[in-house]
């Protein structure tokens, strides 16, 4: 092999290596170009040098556990009627329905676990296991995990740890096996379930006073990340169709104006925990709330039925 022929080969091999070895990420500027249209994070004007060095960009959505924790700290109560019944699990045969409902079930599982519902937690862990198995996710929930869950059914800390581990196993397996579109659909399913649960915790006559409304408004922030994550995977037809559905939610959120004051950092605290101080100004009209609730319920019903 002469050097004249070797160079193009090596360059091409390097290019292919870079593309393959960066699963889920975006080397350099591709994510930024994709995101310019909607993402609100300001980028410095001249970043060409920096962008060369940025090997991976992650978009992180609230995990099901975080969603459940936020619901609880905002005054949610447990309502089993809001969960997607585990009997539905046998209905999900397509990649999209399995992925989205794995996110839905994992969020329901986290919600039930955090509200000390042991038997329901076991049932939802089994439903999640079945979907994970059907999606070919190896060892997301093994028999040892189920035994550990049953042996510690009254220990919330252990249960939460198992839920966290299960979610990490699923998302990391999908990432490692270059199945980011499935991971994106799973995360989006969980995000919509969290919004659905929050919307159904609000008394419509008490919108002004409800702490849950603040969380619903704040979901506008993570919605931007949902859209970026979906756009990153929109070459997949299932993701593209899911994106169309999420756009309907985005359209409603665009009617809500939220302003935030600059962040002040308070780091000199005895407990070592820095406080990021800022205020938010936002209002959710009853009409917009109704529209959001009905649209999210309709989309979520289409997922689970």
């Amino acid at each position, binding site marked *: *092999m002469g050097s004249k*022929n070797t160079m193009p*080969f090596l360059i*091409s*091999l390097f290019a*292919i*290596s870079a593309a*393959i*070895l960066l*699963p889920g*990420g975006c080397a350099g500027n591709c994510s930024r170009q994709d995101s310019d249209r909607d*993402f*609100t*994070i*300001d*980028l410095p004007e001249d970043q060409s040098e920096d962008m060369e*060095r*940025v*090997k*991976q*960009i*992650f*978009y*992180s*959505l*609230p*995990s099901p*556990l*975080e969603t459940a*924790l*936020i619901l609880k*700290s905002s005054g949610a109560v447990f309502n089993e009627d809001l969960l997607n019944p585990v009997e539905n699990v046998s209905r999900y045969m397509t990649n999209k329905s399995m992925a989205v409902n794995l996110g839905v079930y994992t969020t329901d599982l986290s919600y039930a676990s955090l509200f000390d519902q042991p038997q329901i937690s076991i049932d939802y862990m089994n439903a999640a296991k079945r979907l994970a198995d059907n999606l070919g996710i190896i060892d997301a929930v093994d028999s040892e995990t189920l035994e550990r869950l049953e042996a510690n059914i009254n220990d919330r*800390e252990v249960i*939460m*740890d198992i839920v*966290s581990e*299960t*979610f*990490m196993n699923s*998302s*990391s397996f999908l990432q*490692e*096996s*270059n199945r980011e579109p499935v991971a994106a659909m799973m995360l989006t399913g969980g995000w919509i379930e969290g919004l659905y649960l929050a919307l159904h915790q609000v008394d419509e006559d008490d919108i002004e006073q409800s702490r849950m409304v603040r*969380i619903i408004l*704040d979901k506008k*922030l993570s919605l*931007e990340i949902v859209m970026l994550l979906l756009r990153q995977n929109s070459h997949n037809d299932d993701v593209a169709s899911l994106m169309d559905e999420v756009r309907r939610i985005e359209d409603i959120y665009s009617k809500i104006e939220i302003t935030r004051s*600059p*962040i002040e*950092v308070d*780091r000199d605290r005895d407990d*070592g*925990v*820095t*406080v*990021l101080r*800022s*205020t*938010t100004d936002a209002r959710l009209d009853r009409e917009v709330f109704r529209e959001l609730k009905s649209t999210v319920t309709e989309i979520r019903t289409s997922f689970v039925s």
Partner: protein
Amino acid sequence: MIRRFPVFLFFAAILLTNLSPEAQGQCKAFARRICKGDLERYMHDGNYHAAILTEGEEAELYKTFYVDQEYRIAICGDDGLPDIEFRVMDIQRNILYDNSENEFGGTWDFRLESSQQLMIWVRVPSVNPGREPASGCVAILFGLSTR
């Protein structure tokens, strides 16, 4: 030679595709074994963000952090890597925390008075110019306080 070239590339691509999950699998084991321990009393949220980075390379992560929640960010890198630099910035890229001002500590604990979209910037610094740069796994994990 030129006619056989695409076939060769095809097999090279298959080889690399098969290697990639192995390297990523090591990253997951590293994140679980080492990084998760750094969360200590904070509950891991279950999200997994890890990549293989080489000296001089950076990664960015965008996430919404919620009002009244207390978080721990834990960043850790393979033993063979130098101390990992990380910064937390707001949406205008104002720096809220820089671990280079805190002896390159791998964790930062904070809570918020209103929900915010933040960016976490991570870099593996180049410490030995002229030598082959080291590569290794870098993981970013989030812990939640359940107190």
